[in-house]
């Protein structure tokens, strides 16, 4: 590519390369985890919350839907592994990546294992593609040698070397989450909430979302509600602030933006806050983070579970307690709204 060099920007680091690859993997994972999670949640609404434990005989429509949902949801970790490898090494990365994702599930390393496996496949395949191969054999590299050798090598490394520490780490993390008392639950949730509302869809929020989505992929649904509910507070909170603040503090453009923020809050799109964030960064971020932290913390304390990682109001009925979800959403938004309406400086009049 005829790359134009940018001023003040150094060459892409390895860290940035890995981050881009993981983000690509996640972008392919999201429809899988959302579709699968929502279908499972619908089945739970129809056939009871314990439907997952009663799947030996599939005799009701609810169970069939649950089966379909699970069929998709089971591809969450394979998808993130395969497409992380795909982002790094292109097409030949997909097959070994799928294998690492499935293997990660089998050896209890979950989402983190899938990511590690995907990255490993990416590097191995990138390296194999550079092998000097006689022309006659070039055709068999991508269809025979790479899928076989890369899968075997990475699989062995996963199983015998990196798998065990990751599985231990995952178990430790799960035990840690289970053993949290009320106070530390609140802190954990508040941290997620505050991060979600720190940069409106930027890297800090993505990091928090990645952790909760990873836990969701491993079957922990409570942090997901903390993430989504607090993420939904920021745009609504800012919209509320424009109502409270009135004409002295917000101009017509702000009010117009607030309307779209109101709509986008319902579908969990925090980016609606960006126009406000750009104009008045510090005050907006402070107010949003406080509101988000309150909501996130309370989500954890009340054990509000959301099987769906995305979707806003459309997935509220699938949470373990829809009314509580709406209540916490409004509560955090009001906190943000009141604080920002108070902090905002009046418009300067000439």
């Amino acid at each position: 590519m005829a790359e134009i060099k940018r001023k003040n920007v150094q060459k892409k680091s390895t860290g940035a390369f890995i981050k881009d690859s993981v983000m690509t993997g996640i972008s392919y994972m999201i429809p899988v985890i959302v579709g699968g999670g929502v279908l499972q949640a619908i089945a739970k609404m129809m056939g009871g919350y314990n439907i997952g434990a009663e799947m030996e005989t599939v005799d009701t429509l609810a169970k069939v839907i649950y089966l379909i949902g699970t069929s998709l949801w089971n591809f969450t970790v394979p998808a993130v592994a395969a497409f992380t490898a795909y982002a790094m090494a292109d097409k030949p990365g997909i097959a070994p990546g799928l294998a690492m994702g499935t293997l990660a599930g089998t050896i209890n390393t979950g989402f983190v294992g899938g990511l590690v496996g995907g990255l490993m496949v990416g590097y191995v395949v990138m390296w194999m593609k550079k092998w000097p191969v006689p022309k006659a054999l070039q055709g068999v590299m991508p269809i025979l040698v790479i899928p076989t050798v890369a899968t075997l090598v990475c699989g062995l490394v996963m199983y015998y070397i990196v798998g065990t520490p990751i599985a231990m780490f995952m178990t430790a993390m799960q035990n840690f989450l289970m053993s949290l008392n009320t106070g530390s639950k609140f802190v954990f949730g508040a941290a997620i909430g505050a991060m979600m509302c720190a940069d409106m869809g930027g890297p800090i929020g993505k990091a928090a979302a990645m952790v909760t989505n990873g836990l969701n992929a491993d079957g922990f649904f409570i942090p997901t509600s903390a993430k989504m509910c607090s993420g939904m507070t920021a745009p609504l909170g800012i919209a509320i602030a424009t109502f409270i603040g009135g004409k002295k503090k917000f101009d017509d453009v702000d009010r117009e933006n607030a309307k779209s923020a109101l709509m986008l809050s319902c579908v969990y799109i925090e980016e609606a806050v960006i126009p406000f964030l750009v104009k008045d960064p510090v005050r907006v971020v402070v107010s949003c983070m406080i509101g988000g932290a309150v909501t996130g913390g309370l989500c954890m304390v009340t054990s509000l579970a959301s099987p769906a990682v995305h979707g806003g109001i459309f997935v509220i009925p699938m949470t373990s307690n829809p009314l509580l979800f709406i209540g916490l959403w409004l509560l955090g938004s009001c906190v943000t709204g009141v604080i920002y309406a108070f902090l905002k400086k009046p418009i300067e009049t000439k």
Partner: protein
Amino acid sequence: MYIVCVTACPVGIAHTYMAAANLEKAVKAAGHEVKVETQGAQGLENEITKEDLERCDAAIIASDIRIKDSERFEDVPTMTVAVQEAVKDAEGIVQELLEALEG
């Protein structure tokens, strides 16, 4: 001048389209022709065609992920930026590109 852009972000429902709208506005404001391809959750939309590639003078890729078919831009002067930058300061990016092309 004719500038083609590609935008993409991990989720593909918000940033991708905000960046696309801002870039389109910024290039037009600078008085040049523009076409923006989005690679969001819908897949490729408003795809940059072969004719566009032959005709264009430069490309801007605003993405946090690996975009599809990046090899298309092999022979085009291309500037790669994070999608966030295009959302926040599209004018700045276009300005920088134009300066680089002249310089």
